[in-house]
């Protein structure tokens, strides 16, 4: 009898447990999210993986065989990549270069970004509003603009063309070409140049993450240390640093992955000295139609990045992050810079002028030059902006504001960025909620890993796979789930949203982490259900974060080309496509004009959001 009773209660307990799990909306949402992510991210990844094991027609030449063998299982590509006499030049050397770039950029960007963040948040630096607006401009301007600016500064005579500013100064001083070459070449091209230029691009991530974390520190903690007699460095080391460490590690992941995955800057500054990384090999192979090898490389890069996410999860563990939206108030007292104040201010001004304002100014000046590289007043023109179509300039193509396509592209770009921004943000916040509440648990870690994958799938591959997947109706066990989406705006939105989920969900995670669990717990005790809590507590408190997350996606979709060009129909044109067309027509000036328009829109939207919407890119990325 007793035995029976125990069984009864055990089975009842189990039944109740199952009931609790199934009826809890949170679990249902987690399940739906995992299924969707598996379908939208893991499936394309598996598709890529499968491709690397299928023999393509192109490689019948090397392996022998007939048309019958096309699509058959093969180890040819992995063997060629990992264990052949090509491996050293195709994989190992570029991989080592990638890693040095990744580590170099991470270290420099974290150092620079953290210093700036500390100065902006915790010190009594003057002109803070100006600095904090200027400090994220690098994230908005394309990295090739900075590469171009770098070369116009340091280009040496050996590569021909007009020498860079420094080189021509040295030439005027009577220094011989060989000496100039020896001094400038290591700075102008290759590893050092790439690390510096990428650092100037990606320090923005660290700045955003770390300043958000610093913002949330109650200065009482530091003051407590001071009362106990700790020195300033000890406080920094023992109190401040541990508190911002999670944010720094997050920044490392974003920076490191982005630095090993980027191509433009590395190609631009690395090519003259044959400095190649895994990403340059990936793009070269892709452009040489060696799709399988390119995919295999992309998968290796995804593995490296996943490893860094995994290490990050292990390092931070289940440790709680610090909720700032809670029941208690906090305050922040700026720390005096004392005698250092003027010096630091001047250094910052110089930094902003050289590193940020100059590339923008160069871009604007170049858009107004009739001929490239001729610096005279008569060479200045507004033709590329408002020209009517002179057959002697640009093969008769009119300036951008007279181009019928411009308005259409502008409209398409705005529509795309706003719609995708809204959808991306909503999904990002949902996923962020899961990552935040599931922190340290299996499902939270799984979602965090899954969401990160699209970050490193090359856009052309990602766009191509989506084009194939959704050009036909999608069905499961004979039931049609999704109709064919080819050529629809829905497909463009779906593709862009998923590709940009890593940003969106990271913004969401930090946003949700700021909301203390005690608020929700209090509501639960009062009997509020999941949806009521979400609508009445979580959503209102995270409104600001919604806008910030929106901005992050908005900025990156505005710049997107490779992904969208595959999905769009010939009649949909966007601003980056227009810039590409002008570049193709050998009109870099007009292309610059479009880039300036894009930059202005992004900046305008950001400034408006900053003024009216309580948005702050910084607040949206910590976590």
């Amino acid at each position: 009898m007793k035995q029976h009773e125990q069984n009864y209660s055990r089975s009842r307990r189990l039944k109740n447990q199952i009931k609790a799990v199934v009826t809890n909306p949170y679990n249902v949402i987690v399940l739906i999210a995992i299924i969707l992510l598996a379908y939208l991210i893991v499936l394309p990844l598996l598709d890529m993986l499968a491709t690397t094991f299928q023999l393509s027609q192109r490689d019948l030449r090397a392996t022998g065989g007939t048309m019958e063998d096309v699509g058959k299982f093969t180890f040819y590509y992995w063997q060629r990549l990992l264990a052949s006499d090509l491996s050293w030049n195709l994989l190992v050397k570029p991989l080592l270069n990638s890693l040095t770039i990744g580590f170099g950029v991470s270290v420099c960007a974290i150092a620079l970004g953290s210093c700036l963040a500390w100065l902006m948040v915790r010190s009594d630096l003057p002109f803070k509003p100006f600095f904090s607006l200027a400090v994220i401009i690098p994230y908005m301007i394309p990295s090739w603009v900075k590469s171009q600016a770098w070369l116009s500064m340091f280009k040496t005579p050996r590569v021909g063309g007009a020498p860079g500013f420094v080189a021509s100064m040295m030439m005027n001083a009577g220094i011989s070409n060989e000496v100039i070459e020896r001094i400038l070449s290591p700075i102008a091209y290759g590893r050092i140049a790439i690390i510096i230029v990428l650092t100037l691009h990606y320090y923005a991530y660290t700045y955003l993450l770390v300043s958000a974390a610093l913002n949330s520190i109650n200065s009482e903690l530091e003051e407590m240390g001071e009362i106990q007699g700790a020195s300033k460095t000890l406080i920094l080391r023992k109190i401040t640093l541990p508190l911002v460490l999670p944010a720094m590690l997050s920044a490392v992941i974003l920076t490191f992955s982005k630095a090993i995955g980027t191509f433009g800057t590395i190609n631009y500054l690395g090519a003259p000295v044959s400095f190649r990384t895994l990403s340059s090999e990936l793009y070269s192979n892709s452009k040489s139609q060696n799709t399988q090898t390119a995919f295999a490389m992309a998968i290796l890069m995804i593995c490296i990045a996943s490893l860094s996410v995994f290490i990050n999860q292990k390092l931070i563990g289940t440790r709680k992050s610090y909720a700032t939206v809670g029941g208690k108030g906090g305050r922040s007292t700026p720390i005096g810079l004392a005698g250092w104040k003027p010096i630091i201010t001047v250094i910052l001004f110089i930094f902003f002028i050289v590193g940020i304002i100059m590339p923008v100014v160069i871009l604007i000046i170049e858009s107004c030059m009739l001929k490239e590289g001729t610096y005279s007043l008569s060479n200045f023109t507004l033709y590329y902006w408002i020209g009517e179509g002179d057959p002697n300039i640009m093969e008769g193509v009119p300036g951008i504001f007279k181009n019928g396509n411009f308005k259409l592209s502008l409209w398409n770009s705005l529509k795309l960025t706003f719609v995708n921004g809204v959808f991306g943000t909503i999904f990002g916040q949902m996923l962020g909620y899961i990552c935040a509440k599931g922190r340290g648990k299996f499902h939270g870690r799984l979602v965090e890993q899954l969401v990160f994958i699209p970050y490193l799938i090359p856009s052309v591959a990602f766009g191509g796979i989506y084009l194939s997947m959704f050009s036909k109706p999608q069905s499961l066990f004979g039931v049609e789930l999704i109709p064919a989406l080819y050529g629809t705006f829905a497909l463009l939105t779906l593709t862009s949203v998923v590709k940009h989920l890593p940003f969106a969900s990271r913004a969401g995670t930090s946003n949700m982490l700021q909301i203390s669990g005690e608020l929700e717990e209090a509501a639960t005790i009062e009997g509020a259900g999941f949806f009521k809590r979400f609508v009445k507590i979580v959503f209102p408190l995270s409104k600001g974060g919604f806008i910030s997350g929106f901005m992050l996606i908005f900025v990156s979709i505005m710049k997107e080309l490779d992904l969208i060009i595959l999905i769009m129909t010939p009649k949909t044109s966007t601003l980056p496509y227009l810039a590409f067309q002008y570049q193709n027509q050998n009109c870099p000036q007009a292309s610059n004009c479009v880039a300036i328009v894009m930059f202005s829109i992004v900046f305008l939207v950001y400034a408006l959001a900053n003024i009216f919407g309580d948005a702050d890119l910084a607040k949206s990325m910590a976590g």
Partner: protein
Amino acid sequence: MFKHKNWLAALMAVVMLLSLTACGGKKTEEKPAETPAQSEQPAETPAESNLTEWEQKSGIYNTDETDEELYQRALEEGATVTLYSISSRCTKVADAFMAKYPGLECVPFDISTNELLEKVTREYDAGQHVADVVHIKDQDGSMYIEYVQGGKFYNFQPADIFSHIDPEYTATATPLYIELTQLFYNTEAYPDGSPITNIWQLTEPQWKGKIMMQNPLDNLSWGSWITGFCVGEEPDRLAEAYKNLYGEELKLSDDCENAGYEFLKRLHANEPIFTASSDEIAESVGTPGQKDPPVGFCASSKLRKAEENGWVFAPVNLEPDTGIPAVNTLYIVEGCEHPAAAKLLVRFMMGGVDGDTSGYKPFNTLGGWPVRDDITPADGSTPYSEINVAPFDANEIYVNYNIVRDFWQKLG
């Protein structure tokens, strides 16, 4: 306990995924069977009974229709045609086409080679017949061997136009115009003519680190260009040029099968400077006011930019030759919904037969050579027959492309 459930959920997700991919896998395997194998000579019409439904309906092998007949049928079948092109000039072609054939709409899409192939293949495989006509270059022979012989693209070669074209170009492709990769030098620094006339001079020590080009690993066109030196009769030509220059036989290194590989090996050893784009090369070589400018290989089409940019450079007519030509080609896409309009557009772009060459004009510029004997090249062009060009054999390039690319990769 809870952990357990999560694992279960994950396992379920994986199982579902596997079942999904299993379906996906089958689909891709079936594909090759769906496309009928093409006969070896696509230009010849297969027997009536072997035609696919689309081939019959579109009359793709019928090359006798006049422009007027095609125009009428184009108006009936939908009055629109879509052109995917690697050239920005496709917009001008489309405008001229619509001006000549009122009522027809021509949608041009300017897209780079890699994306074009990815897009058109994915769309084709998914049954989305968007592109009617494709303008691309067959540089490595893959257009012919994979796309034409694979039944995805069709060559359309009406006799009235093609009687004006050298059959050397028409065996595997419908050629539109020819571009070259040429060596350029700075005419201001070398007023007496090019410092280099024989291609082997590029392997001499005084040009170390002073030759600009794009990395052949970077894309299909440069990869095909270096392949061109290693196949067919080109290695013999190179060996002979070597003997002419130095008066002695060329000694091959152990890893070099022929003079082509030897040339590539020595060129690579001379540390050429690679750039991210062809434009940069033209600028590097052609910028005036340089004391010791480099020489550089770049696309002949940069010639038409020279005046606008104030570049002072000229191409060299190299011994034995400047490598293989890059032939721009046109194809009609299998299964396209506007075959008559597609045929009309191809005829229009090829220059037609009525003397109106407005469809050809945008391409007939300095640095591009027409393939038709009845269309004169742009003013100031060197006649194509006077330029030393390597023979182009699509099959040879296709078979050797990856071998040569790997050879270059192994060099470092």
